Protein backbone atom coordinates (compact mmCIF):
# COMPACT_ATOMS: atom_id res chain seq x y z
CA UNK A 1 0.00 0.00 0.00
CA UNK A 2 2.70 2.43 1.04
CA UNK A 3 4.69 1.64 -2.04
CA UNK A 4 1.67 2.29 -4.28
CA UNK A 5 0.97 5.65 -2.76
CA UNK A 6 4.62 6.66 -3.04
CA UNK A 7 4.80 5.81 -6.71
CA UNK A 8 1.55 7.67 -7.24
CA UNK A 9 3.03 10.80 -5.66
CA UNK A 10 6.20 10.32 -7.61
CA UNK A 11 4.28 10.50 -10.87
CA UNK A 12 2.64 13.68 -9.75
CA UNK A 13 5.60 15.55 -8.40
CA UNK A 14 9.31 15.18 -9.08
CA UNK A 15 10.21 16.88 -5.77
CA UNK A 16 8.70 14.03 -3.77
CA UNK A 17 10.82 11.63 -5.78
CA UNK A 18 13.94 13.49 -4.69
CA UNK A 19 12.82 13.29 -1.07
CA UNK A 20 12.23 9.59 -1.40
CA UNK A 21 15.73 9.15 -2.88
CA UNK A 22 17.23 10.99 0.06
CA UNK A 23 15.30 8.81 2.53
CA UNK A 24 16.35 5.70 0.61
CA UNK A 25 20.01 6.69 0.62
CA UNK A 26 19.80 7.47 4.32
CA UNK A 27 18.25 4.05 5.04
CA UNK A 28 20.88 2.34 2.94
CA UNK A 29 23.73 4.10 4.71
CA UNK A 30 22.25 3.22 8.11
CA UNK A 31 22.06 -0.45 7.18
CA UNK A 32 25.57 -0.41 5.75
CA UNK A 33 26.74 1.29 8.92
CA UNK A 34 25.27 -1.59 10.92
CA UNK A 35 27.14 -4.11 8.83
CA UNK A 36 30.47 -2.36 9.30
CA UNK A 37 29.79 -1.98 13.04
CA UNK A 38 29.29 -5.74 13.20
CA UNK A 39 32.58 -6.30 11.43
CA UNK A 40 34.34 -3.85 13.73
CA UNK A 41 33.18 -5.97 16.66
CA UNK A 42 34.71 -9.09 15.11
CA UNK A 43 37.92 -7.33 14.26
CA UNK A 44 39.13 -6.49 10.80
CA UNK A 45 41.41 -9.46 10.38
CA UNK A 46 38.79 -12.05 11.29
CA UNK A 47 36.29 -10.35 9.00
CA UNK A 48 38.77 -10.39 6.16
CA UNK A 49 39.59 -14.04 6.59
CA UNK A 50 36.10 -15.20 7.39
CA UNK A 51 34.88 -14.04 4.00
CA UNK A 52 37.56 -16.16 2.41
CA UNK A 53 36.85 -19.15 4.61
CA UNK A 54 33.09 -19.02 4.20
CA UNK A 55 33.08 -19.33 0.43
CA UNK A 56 32.63 -23.09 0.13
CA UNK A 57 31.30 -25.48 2.71
CA UNK A 58 32.67 -25.82 6.24
CA UNK A 59 35.39 -28.51 6.34
CA UNK A 60 34.88 -31.49 8.67
CA UNK A 61 36.61 -31.03 12.03
CA UNK A 62 35.61 -34.25 13.74
CA UNK A 63 38.02 -37.17 13.84
CA UNK A 64 35.41 -39.83 14.59
CA UNK A 65 33.12 -38.66 11.79
CA UNK A 66 36.01 -38.72 9.35
CA UNK A 67 37.19 -42.14 10.39
CA UNK A 68 33.81 -43.84 10.40
CA UNK A 69 32.37 -42.35 7.22
CA UNK A 70 35.49 -42.21 5.09
CA UNK A 71 36.06 -45.94 5.61
CA UNK A 72 33.62 -46.39 2.72
CA UNK A 73 33.09 -43.04 1.00
CA UNK A 74 33.97 -39.37 0.79
CA UNK A 75 33.14 -37.81 4.19
CA UNK A 76 30.43 -35.42 3.03
CA UNK A 77 30.50 -32.20 5.03
CA UNK A 78 27.46 -31.65 7.31
CA UNK A 79 26.79 -28.35 5.49
CA UNK A 80 25.48 -30.20 2.41
CA UNK A 81 22.12 -31.10 3.95
CA UNK A 82 19.72 -29.72 6.55
CA UNK A 83 19.40 -31.36 9.96
CA UNK A 84 16.18 -33.16 8.96
CA UNK A 85 18.03 -34.99 6.19
CA UNK A 86 20.83 -36.16 8.47
CA UNK A 87 18.32 -37.38 11.05
CA UNK A 88 16.67 -39.54 8.37
CA UNK A 89 20.02 -40.89 7.18
CA UNK A 90 21.84 -41.60 10.42
CA UNK A 91 19.13 -43.24 12.53
CA UNK A 92 20.02 -46.74 13.76
CA UNK A 93 17.44 -48.37 11.47
CA UNK A 94 18.44 -46.28 8.42
CA UNK A 95 22.10 -47.27 8.81
CA UNK A 96 21.18 -50.93 8.40
CA UNK A 97 20.34 -50.10 4.80
CA UNK A 98 22.57 -47.17 3.92
CA UNK A 99 22.08 -46.90 0.14
CA UNK A 100 22.09 -50.67 -0.09
CA UNK A 101 25.02 -51.19 2.29
CA UNK A 102 25.04 -52.14 5.94
CA UNK A 103 26.62 -49.25 7.82
CA UNK A 104 25.57 -50.07 11.37
CA UNK A 105 27.38 -48.25 14.16
CA UNK A 106 27.45 -48.89 17.88
CA UNK A 107 25.07 -46.60 19.73
CA UNK A 108 27.75 -44.34 21.20
CA UNK A 109 29.37 -43.72 17.80
CA UNK A 110 26.02 -43.21 16.10
CA UNK A 111 25.02 -40.63 18.71
CA UNK A 112 28.30 -38.78 18.32
CA UNK A 113 27.96 -38.67 14.55
CA UNK A 114 24.33 -37.54 14.42
CA UNK A 115 25.06 -34.82 16.97
CA UNK A 116 28.01 -33.57 14.95
CA UNK A 117 25.91 -33.53 11.76
CA UNK A 118 22.92 -31.83 13.39
CA UNK A 119 24.99 -29.08 15.01
CA UNK A 120 26.82 -28.28 11.76
CA UNK A 121 24.04 -28.90 9.23
CA UNK A 122 23.35 -26.63 6.25
CA UNK A 123 20.48 -24.80 7.96
CA UNK A 124 22.90 -23.55 10.63
CA UNK A 125 25.93 -22.87 8.46
CA UNK A 126 27.11 -19.45 7.30
CA UNK A 127 29.07 -20.88 4.40
CA UNK A 128 28.06 -19.87 0.90
CA UNK A 129 27.23 -23.32 -0.47
CA UNK A 130 25.13 -24.23 2.56
CA UNK A 131 23.20 -20.98 2.23
CA UNK A 132 22.56 -21.67 -1.45
CA UNK A 133 21.43 -25.20 -0.67
CA UNK A 134 18.96 -23.98 1.93
CA UNK A 135 17.67 -21.30 -0.44
CA UNK A 136 16.98 -23.95 -3.09
CA UNK A 137 15.03 -26.23 -0.73
CA UNK A 138 11.40 -25.74 0.24
CA UNK A 139 10.68 -25.26 3.91
CA UNK A 140 11.00 -28.57 5.80
CA UNK A 141 12.23 -30.30 2.65
CA UNK A 142 14.81 -32.86 3.75
CA UNK A 143 16.25 -34.89 0.85
CA UNK A 144 18.27 -37.98 1.71
CA UNK A 145 20.69 -37.50 -1.15
CA UNK A 146 22.87 -34.47 -1.76
CA UNK A 147 22.35 -35.12 -5.48
CA UNK A 148 18.62 -34.45 -5.00
CA UNK A 149 19.21 -30.90 -3.76
CA UNK A 150 17.94 -28.49 -6.47
CA UNK A 151 21.02 -26.27 -6.13
CA UNK A 152 23.35 -29.24 -6.67
CA UNK A 153 21.32 -30.44 -9.67
CA UNK A 154 21.41 -26.96 -11.20
CA UNK A 155 25.16 -26.57 -10.67
CA UNK A 156 25.83 -29.78 -12.60
CA UNK A 157 23.12 -29.73 -15.28
CA UNK A 158 25.40 -28.52 -18.07
CA UNK A 159 27.93 -31.28 -17.67
CA UNK A 160 27.35 -33.98 -20.30
CA UNK A 161 26.60 -37.57 -19.15
CA UNK A 162 29.75 -38.90 -20.78
CA UNK A 163 31.84 -36.96 -18.26
CA UNK A 164 30.04 -38.23 -15.15
CA UNK A 165 27.72 -41.25 -15.23
CA UNK A 166 29.24 -42.68 -18.40
CA UNK A 167 32.77 -41.84 -17.33
CA UNK A 168 34.29 -45.03 -15.87
CA UNK A 169 36.59 -42.94 -13.69
CA UNK A 170 33.72 -40.98 -12.12
CA UNK A 171 30.53 -43.11 -12.41
CA UNK A 172 28.21 -40.89 -10.38
CA UNK A 173 27.63 -37.36 -9.20
CA UNK A 174 27.79 -38.78 -5.67
CA UNK A 175 31.57 -39.08 -5.75
CA UNK A 176 32.40 -35.38 -5.21
CA UNK A 177 36.09 -35.97 -4.70
CA UNK A 178 36.60 -37.57 -8.12
CA UNK A 179 36.39 -34.17 -9.83
CA UNK A 180 36.50 -31.63 -6.99
CA UNK A 181 40.17 -31.91 -6.16
CA UNK A 182 39.85 -29.79 -2.99
CA UNK A 183 36.57 -31.37 -1.84
CA UNK A 184 37.96 -32.47 1.50
CA UNK A 185 38.93 -28.86 2.27
CA UNK A 186 35.39 -27.73 1.52
CA UNK A 187 36.47 -25.94 -1.67
CA UNK A 188 34.15 -26.50 -4.65
CA UNK A 189 34.93 -23.65 -7.05
CA UNK A 190 35.37 -24.19 -10.80
CA UNK A 191 39.13 -23.67 -10.61
CA UNK A 192 39.63 -26.75 -8.46
CA UNK A 193 37.63 -29.04 -10.77
CA UNK A 194 39.50 -31.68 -12.73
CA UNK A 195 37.35 -34.28 -14.47
CA UNK A 196 39.30 -37.56 -14.81
CA UNK A 197 39.88 -38.43 -18.46
CA UNK A 198 38.76 -34.96 -19.52
CA UNK A 199 40.49 -32.13 -17.67
CA UNK A 200 39.45 -28.84 -16.17
CA UNK A 201 35.95 -27.51 -16.44
CA UNK A 202 34.46 -24.06 -16.79
CA UNK A 203 30.85 -23.21 -17.49
Amino acid at each position, binding site marked *: MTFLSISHNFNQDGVIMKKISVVFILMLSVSLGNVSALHAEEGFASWLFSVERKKGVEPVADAMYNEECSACHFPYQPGWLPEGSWRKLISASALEDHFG*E*NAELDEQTQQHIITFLAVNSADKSHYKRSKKIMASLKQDQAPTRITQVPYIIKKHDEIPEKLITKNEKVKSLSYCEKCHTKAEKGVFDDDSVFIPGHGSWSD
Partner: protein
Amino acid sequence: MKKYVGLIVVIGLGCVSYAQANMDDLYKYYNPQGELTFDAERGKTLWYKKHLDKKGKERVCTTCHGEDLSKPGKHAKTGKVIDPLAASVNKERFTELKKVKKWFKRNCKWVLGRECTAQEKGDILKYLSQF
Protein backbone atom coordinates in the same frame (compact mmCIF):
# COMPACT_ATOMS: atom_id res chain seq x y z
CA MET B 1 41.73 -23.52 19.10
CA LYS B 2 38.71 -25.07 20.80
CA LYS B 3 38.36 -27.40 17.83
CA TYR B 4 41.91 -28.69 18.33
CA VAL B 5 41.40 -29.21 22.05
CA GLY B 6 38.39 -31.38 21.20
CA LEU B 7 40.40 -33.29 18.66
CA ILE B 8 43.28 -33.90 21.07
CA VAL B 9 40.85 -35.12 23.75
CA VAL B 10 39.19 -37.50 21.27
CA ILE B 11 42.55 -38.89 20.15
CA GLY B 12 43.72 -39.14 23.76
CA LEU B 13 40.62 -41.03 24.83
CA GLY B 14 40.95 -43.21 21.77
CA CYS B 15 44.45 -44.28 22.78
CA VAL B 16 43.38 -45.10 26.32
CA SER B 17 40.12 -46.91 25.60
CA TYR B 18 41.19 -49.08 22.69
CA ALA B 19 43.51 -51.53 24.31
CA GLN B 20 45.55 -53.43 21.78
CA ALA B 21 44.23 -56.91 21.15
CA ASN B 22 46.10 -59.80 19.62
CA MET B 23 44.77 -62.83 17.74
CA ASP B 24 44.50 -64.94 20.88
CA ASP B 25 42.35 -62.27 22.55
CA LEU B 26 40.05 -62.34 19.54
CA TYR B 27 39.75 -66.16 19.55
CA LYS B 28 38.99 -66.00 23.24
CA TYR B 29 36.33 -63.34 22.68
CA TYR B 30 34.51 -65.55 20.18
CA ASN B 31 35.05 -68.67 22.27
CA PRO B 32 34.87 -67.63 25.93
CA GLN B 33 33.92 -71.08 27.24
CA GLY B 34 36.53 -72.83 25.13
CA GLU B 35 34.09 -75.33 23.61
CA LEU B 36 34.74 -74.30 19.98
CA THR B 37 37.68 -75.28 17.80
CA PHE B 38 38.58 -72.85 15.04
CA ASP B 39 39.85 -74.16 11.74
CA ALA B 40 41.65 -72.24 8.98
CA GLU B 41 40.48 -74.59 6.20
CA ARG B 42 36.83 -74.11 7.16
CA GLY B 43 37.51 -70.39 7.27
CA LYS B 44 39.02 -70.49 3.79
CA THR B 45 35.96 -72.30 2.39
CA LEU B 46 33.67 -69.68 3.87
CA TRP B 47 35.96 -66.88 2.65
CA TYR B 48 35.61 -68.01 -0.96
CA LYS B 49 31.97 -69.11 -0.80
CA LYS B 50 29.81 -67.23 -3.29
CA HIS B 51 26.49 -65.77 -2.26
CA LEU B 52 23.85 -63.99 -4.30
CA ASP B 53 22.33 -60.66 -3.35
CA LYS B 54 18.66 -59.75 -3.91
CA LYS B 55 19.36 -58.81 -7.50
CA GLY B 56 21.16 -62.08 -8.18
CA LYS B 57 24.60 -60.49 -8.21
CA GLU B 58 27.48 -62.47 -6.77
CA ARG B 59 28.98 -61.46 -3.44
CA VAL B 60 32.18 -62.93 -2.00
CA CYS B 61 34.58 -61.64 0.64
CA THR B 62 37.05 -61.08 -2.17
CA THR B 63 34.62 -58.74 -4.00
CA CYS B 64 36.00 -55.95 -1.85
CA HIS B 65 39.12 -57.43 -0.22
CA GLY B 66 40.58 -58.77 -3.47
CA GLU B 67 42.41 -62.02 -4.24
CA ASP B 68 45.77 -60.95 -2.83
CA LEU B 69 45.35 -59.99 0.82
CA SER B 70 48.70 -58.24 0.92
CA LYS B 71 47.37 -55.71 -1.58
CA PRO B 72 44.69 -53.05 -1.03
CA GLY B 73 41.09 -53.92 -1.81
CA LYS B 74 38.35 -51.77 -3.28
CA HIS B 75 34.85 -50.98 -2.02
CA ALA B 76 32.39 -52.66 -4.42
CA LYS B 77 30.19 -49.61 -4.74
CA THR B 78 32.20 -46.48 -4.07
CA GLY B 79 35.60 -47.75 -5.21
CA LYS B 80 37.15 -46.46 -1.99
CA VAL B 81 40.51 -48.11 -1.30
CA ILE B 82 40.44 -50.68 1.52
CA ASP B 83 43.75 -51.23 3.30
CA PRO B 84 45.25 -54.73 2.95
CA LEU B 85 43.87 -57.38 5.32
CA ALA B 86 47.18 -59.19 5.73
CA ALA B 87 48.71 -58.33 9.09
CA SER B 88 52.16 -58.90 7.55
CA VAL B 89 51.79 -55.68 5.56
CA ASN B 90 49.20 -53.87 7.68
CA LYS B 91 50.10 -54.00 11.36
CA GLU B 92 46.83 -52.41 12.45
CA ARG B 93 44.80 -55.41 11.34
CA PHE B 94 43.15 -57.52 14.07
CA THR B 95 44.45 -55.31 16.88
CA GLU B 96 41.19 -53.67 17.88
CA LEU B 97 38.23 -55.76 19.02
CA LYS B 98 35.76 -52.95 18.41
CA LYS B 99 36.76 -52.72 14.75
CA VAL B 100 36.78 -56.47 14.25
CA LYS B 101 33.25 -56.69 15.67
CA LYS B 102 31.99 -53.80 13.57
CA TRP B 103 33.30 -55.10 10.27
CA PHE B 104 32.29 -58.72 10.89
CA LYS B 105 28.76 -57.52 11.56
CA ARG B 106 28.52 -55.29 8.49
CA ASN B 107 30.39 -57.50 6.08
CA CYS B 108 28.76 -60.80 7.03
CA LYS B 109 25.42 -59.10 6.47
CA TRP B 110 26.60 -57.78 3.11
CA VAL B 111 28.05 -61.07 1.83
CA LEU B 112 25.90 -63.73 3.53
CA GLY B 113 22.79 -61.67 4.20
CA ARG B 114 23.03 -62.50 7.91
CA GLU B 115 25.40 -62.19 10.84
CA CYS B 116 28.13 -64.82 11.10
CA THR B 117 28.21 -67.22 14.03
CA ALA B 118 31.05 -67.19 16.54
CA GLN B 119 32.28 -70.43 14.94
CA GLU B 120 32.39 -68.83 11.49
CA LYS B 121 34.12 -65.70 12.73
CA GLY B 122 36.76 -67.72 14.56
CA ASP B 123 37.36 -69.89 11.48
CA ILE B 124 37.77 -66.83 9.26
CA LEU B 125 40.18 -65.24 11.74
CA LYS B 126 42.24 -68.46 11.75
CA TYR B 127 42.38 -68.38 7.96
CA LEU B 128 43.26 -64.69 7.78
CA SER B 129 45.91 -64.95 10.48
CA GLN B 130 48.10 -66.88 8.04
CA PHE B 131 48.75 -63.82 5.88
